[in-house]
């Protein structure tokens, strides 16, 4: 049994973008490599268009890779038409439970249908199995007979998680599962993911745009920008010592609750470029305060960060990753 449950090796996912009648291929994910260890919660952060959902859909088999391989549990996965037994092992939780659940069926009907299709448990055990999974997501079994519209947003997202857990997957791919929720409800769902990992040992690939959520939940984090991973590392190390200017820009952009930070909001210049018209060299250079001529000429590879104090793996795709000054951040209260 390998240590890594999931590996993406140099994967590229392309789409055809139509621009004024002509079609150009764009790489929503561009030569991405990453590995997710068994039992960990791996966070993937990035802004819209960074390619994080593209990767999620690739992992569950909803997108195909133009090149590169997806390796799950030591086995190279086919792009599409994966065997049913394998599909059971990788399950997805979507952002909006209202559109990913069937409005006309009760929750019990939806869950039972999945159990039937996969022939997962015997007929007599279905009811008990549904109730057991409901208990795992801390929902009352009485809600099994409810329809999605009769539930609150938080309850619906718990149902969506229950649906994903139904077949006891090894890997849960969660694409922005808390973004649509109110903050008072969001906290409970974040905690639920943490508990599920502890209780069931399930590995979680967690996608978010909210760095605070990722910092709280994930063991390791990768930051994506325009189809590339620009930085990855152990969560505590990456947040304390970000080595890529984009990661720093993201951290600086987050509004803080502390009123001391009131006037200090820092924003990077400009907007993300279009994937069809990327700048040469480093993709972030058009917005980067540290960019030099070298950044226009050479695309920086993901290199090891030498200053990582605890020796944990920390990589950043910046020519100057090891030369940037120590990150101070905005909050002095930590």
């Amino acid at each position, binding site marked *: 049994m390998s240590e890594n449950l999931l590996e993406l090796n140099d994967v590229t996912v392309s789409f055809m973008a139509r621009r004024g009648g002509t079609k150009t291929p764009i790489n929503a994910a561009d030569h991405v490599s990453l590995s997710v260890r068994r039992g960990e919660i791996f966070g993937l952060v990035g802004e819209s268009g960074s390619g994080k959902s593209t990767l999620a859909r690739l992992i569950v088999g909803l997108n195909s890779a133009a090149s590169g391989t997806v390796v799950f549990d030591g086995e190279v996965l086919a792009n599409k038409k994966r065997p049913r037994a394998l599909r059971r092992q990788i399950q997805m939780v979507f952002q909006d439970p209202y559109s990913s659940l069937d409005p006309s069926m009760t929750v019990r009907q939806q869950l039972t249908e999945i159990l039937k299709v996969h022939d997962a448990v015997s007929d007599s055990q279905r009811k008990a199995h549904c109730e057991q999974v409901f208990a795992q997501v801390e929902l009352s079994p009485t809600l099994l007979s409810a329809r999605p519209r009769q539930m609150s947003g938080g309850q619906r997202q718990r149902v969506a998680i229950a649906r994903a857990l139904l077949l006891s997957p090894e890997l849960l791919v969660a694409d922005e599962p808390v973004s649509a929720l109110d*903050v008072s409800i969001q906290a*409970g769902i974040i905690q639920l993911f943490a508990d599920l990992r502890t209780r069931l040992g399930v590995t979680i690939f967690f996608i978010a745009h*909210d760095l605070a959520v990722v910092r709280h939940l994930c063991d390791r984090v990768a930051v994506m920008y325009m189809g590339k991973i620009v930085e990855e590392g152990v969560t505590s190390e990456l947040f304390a010592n970000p080595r890529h200017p984009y990661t720093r820009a993201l951290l600086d952009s987050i509004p803080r*609750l502390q009123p001391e930070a009131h006037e200090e909001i820092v*924003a990077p210049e400009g907007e993300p470029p279009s994937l069809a018209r990327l700048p040469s060299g480093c993709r972030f250079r058009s917005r980067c305060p540290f960019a030099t001529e070298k950044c226009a000429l050479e695309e920086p590879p993901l290199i090891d960060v030498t200053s990582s104090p605890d020796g944990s793996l920390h990589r950043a795709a910046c020519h100057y990753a090891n030369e940037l000054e120590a990150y101070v951040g905005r*909050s002095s209260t930590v």
Partner: protein
Amino acid sequence: MTSTSSEPLLVVEDLCIDVTPVGDKKVVPAVRNVTFQVAAGEAVGLVGESGSGKSLTLRTILGLLPAGVRATGGRVLFEGVDLLKAPKKTLKNLRGTGITMIFQEPMTSLNPITKVGEQIIDAARAKHSWSKSDARDHALRLARHMGVPDAENVLSLYPHELSGGLRQRVMIAAALACRPKLVLCDEPTTALDVTIQAQIIRLLIELKDEFGMSMLYVTHDLAVVAQLCQRLEVMYSGSIVESGLVSELFREPNHPYTQGLVNATPDVDAVVDLLVGIRGNAPTLGNWPEGCAFHPRCDFATEECQSGEFPLRDTGDGRASACIHIDRLHESTRQATP
């Protein structure tokens, strides 16, 4: 901060809004006895989660309530004029020059088949007797002011050709084309990426200081309010439950709901052992509990909280809270943080 001038720019007093759900005859209250003020030059945040009534309150001010929603009581005074009773013409004249609104989704509030430059020009010319070329110059200046790069080119594009951040800048330009005194903001940065959100927040702070506009900012994001606003009104189930200065309110909330929101917000600068949400769910419209609407989810609730009225009461320092157990709330937070 009390208002410096004698009369605040906007006074909302005992505002009540009812909703009649589609295909239903039953009338359901959505906002109850909401009272607050915005002074000239002041930015006030109106914070709450979905269904709290914050957006309806905002929309009432300009008479933009959707069908089936009606203001049934109270007053909305803008420079002393009650907008709830004012004729349509008064409201029409006020829009743009007096009060303007910035929406969450610029794609739906900009006209998709008109070039964005035309839309700013139209907004400007609606109130000024400018020639087209004067208005065009004004639009260009304004767009540059909003940080629109390559403004001349951008203004000749259609909304769908712009990025989300640029669309939001263009909409702000159109909204501010007539130098309004009060800007109503309905979650204008919620749909944006965090780096673009930071740019828009910075822009709004600059514009507010430069033009001396007042701002009423509706959002679910406490941290955005912390950046932008001086004062804050927290809404829950159609009522304001706490109000006060941003700088003090987050340091020591005077209402368990505010405390719960602060605790539930993950902090990017520090990790806590356990992220605590607020238990249960916010009640839906028409199902508000008796007494304090928050009591079924509140750790401090007693029998007293289950019935009666819970109006905002002054707690000193320009702050107010609807909670009757502030002492117990403070005691518990003091114990939690020695």
